[in-house]
């Protein structure tokens, strides 16, 4: 639980370390290609996929452009159904609210459904500091928690681990968190799933406080929606007496009917299934539960203020863009230094955190701009467009002075035929002196590339000499 993304190096540094790890590259290649193929088949089967995608994007735009109205509508609907609504401007405030709600129950243990929002605010660590243990119950989150590791994928946080590594983590760490792993545990995925079932069973049955996020919140009715596979979500949402849901303010959809779009887009685009095994939908206090909804900003309004960048808030966290990204497949999720890795992370993280660090500034460059992410996005987020927009923002910020000086000099030379001809002749004359490697910081460029040797004669000189003849 001590692991943290804080103080991570910039993307190129972290990525080059990851690329050197052959096991990691093998695990990632296998996993991303498996999900990619499944998704393609599930999407191809849906005859009206393109229309659903257009509707999904438009519905999210509608919510974002009138978010204040929809937030107030949601609040009222949840309260009408007996739920409590809290507002958290940032991570610290959200953690304080959760802490005080847990304290009020007198419990020192909570069970958690996998949730990106609570990862983002570092809830587990904040609770641990105050003596409250949060147990992750999603299988992949459990692997990450037991391994004192960091998540590397939105949907499958332990995607960087293979079955042998998972077996080793279970055998080593389960005992210190609860019921130990069976002595004869093998690396058969069925046996590993069974070990997770046994490990968490007693914990679920006795849990008094559950903490979740939500995939969707319906403004019209106050209904919250959680999609999952294992049943750990149902356990955490159903059995505890108190349920606390931390939900980003961008998770809203306007009406109940609009779920018909997202309940088709999300399962097919994320796990590549016609439908995920379990979905829970509840409105306010359900079956006698004490229900609290915490609406989280934490940088979302900053992203909303950028008219180009705000489309990143349409994201429904399916992670299809990670699975098709050539950069993610090689660098892995940790290099992005955030709970949101991959192409969506490269545009979401810096907008939420606000370009405060070398890492955040390097993220919009963690892409080849190939556009595969845009093609698969179920809500048509134009990720390459936002990447370029953010690069321009960073470029204009004055931090990249050397690059600007070089570009300025190039502009002067390229816009003057005389200067260009002179510099081409000079380069041609000294072509034998062209270095194999550039000095200083420029050496980063030549580490992986050859410097093209200038031709002895420029095209323009050749043309002129041909005419003379």
């Amino acid at each position, binding site marked *: 639980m001590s692991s943290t993304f804080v103080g991570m190096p910039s993307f190129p540094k972290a990525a080059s370390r990851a690329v050197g790890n052959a096991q990691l590259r093998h695990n990632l290649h296998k996993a991303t290609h498996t999900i990619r193929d499944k998704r393609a088949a599930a999407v191809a089967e849906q005859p009206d996929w393109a229309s659903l995608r257009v509707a999904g994007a438009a519905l999210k735009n509608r919510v974002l452009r009138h*978010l204040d109205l929809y937030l107030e509508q949601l609040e009222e609907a949840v309260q009408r159904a007996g739920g409590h609504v809290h507002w958290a401007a940032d991570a610290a405030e959200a953690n304080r609210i959760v802490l005080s709600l847990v304290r009020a129950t007198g419990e020192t243990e909570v069970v958690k459904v996998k949730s990106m929002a609570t990862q983002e605010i570092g809830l587990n660590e904040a609770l641990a500091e105050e003596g409250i243990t949060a147990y992750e119950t999603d299988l992949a989150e459990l692997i990450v928690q037991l391994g004192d590791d960091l998540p590397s994928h939105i949907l499958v946080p332990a995607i960087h681990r*293979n079955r042998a590594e998972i077996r080793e983590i279970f055998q080593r760490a389960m005992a210190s968190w609860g019921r130990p792993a069976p002595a004869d545990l093998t690396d058969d995925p069925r046996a590993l799933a069974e070990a997770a079932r046994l490990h968490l069973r007693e914990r679920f049955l006795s849990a008094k406080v559950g903490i979740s996020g939500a995939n969707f919140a319906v403004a019209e009715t106050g209904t919250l929606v959680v999609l999952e596979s294992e049943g750990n979500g149902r356990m955490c949402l159903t059995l505890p007496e108190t349920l606390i849901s931390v939900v980003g303010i961008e998770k809203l959809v306007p009406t109940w009917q609009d779920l*018909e779009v997202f309940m088709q887009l999300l399962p097919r685009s994320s796990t590549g299934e016609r439908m995920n095994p*379990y*979905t829970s939908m509840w*409105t306010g206090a359900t079956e006698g539960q004490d229900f609290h909804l915490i609406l989280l900003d934490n940088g979302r309004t900053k992203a909303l203020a950028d008219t180009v960048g705000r489309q990143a808030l349409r994201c429904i966290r399916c992670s299809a863009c990670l699975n098709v990204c050539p950069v993610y497949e090689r660098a892995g999720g940790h290099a992005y230094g955030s709970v949101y890795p991959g192409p969506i992370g490269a545009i979401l993280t810096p907008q939420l955190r606000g370009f405060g660090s070398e890492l955040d500034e390097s993220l919009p460059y963690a892409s080849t701009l190939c556009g595969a992410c845009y093609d698969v996005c179920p809500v048509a987020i134009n990720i390459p467009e936002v990447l370029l927009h953010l690069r321009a923002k960073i470029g204009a910020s004055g931090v990249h002075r050397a690059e600007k000086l070089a570009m300025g000099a190039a502009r002067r030379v390229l816009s003057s035929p005389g200067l260009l001809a002179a510099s081409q002749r000079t380069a041609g004359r000294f072509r034998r002196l062209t270095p194999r490697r550039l000095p200083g910081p420029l050496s980063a460029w030549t580490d992986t590339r050859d410097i093209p040797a200038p031709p002895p004669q420029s095209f323009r000189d050749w043309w002129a000499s041909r005419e003379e003849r």
Partner: protein
Amino acid sequence: MGSRETILVRVRSALADVPRAETPDSVRVPRDYQRSRSGPDLVELFLDRLMDYRALVHLDTPVAELARGRGRLMVPPGTPGEWLSGVDVVRDDPPLTATELDRLDGVLTGCAVAIAETGTIILDGGPAQGRRALTLVPDHHLCVVNREQIVRTVPEALQRLDPTRPLTWISGPSATSDIEPDRIEGVHGPRTLEVAIL
């Protein structure tokens, strides 16, 4: 100023570019997708999708015949008597604790709606369904679906549902894709899902 107001003020100033006259409805949502469509026989399709999830399926077998000899089964309020002849029935009255539910051999329920295209069964806590824990904790779920409860598409199902009720959508037995992402059945929810279509 509380955080509620802080956030709403931040949202409004972030949206300074949105024209004052614009309403949510003026953001056009093209709904060219299909709410319903024609295709293969509903029951055939539903069966096919369920089997794809490795659920066990029965067509027109009397429920009591399936439920008999399966040990102690939880039976929610509102279950038709003819499903229960000869069945070892446990009632949730007074309500059982989670630990008590865990000791049962299974649960027998009906459902509210089923979706053929996605192989999904939806429970809404109505008659023969009960509270959510009843179909979650026991390891074996035998679910009865009447033909008229089956619709083809997701939009058709949402139209029939009441959002004020607690809803559980079930598509196959509990599963995970978290280990070298293959779908493996059987984690925390019922590891066996058996569906009887009448």
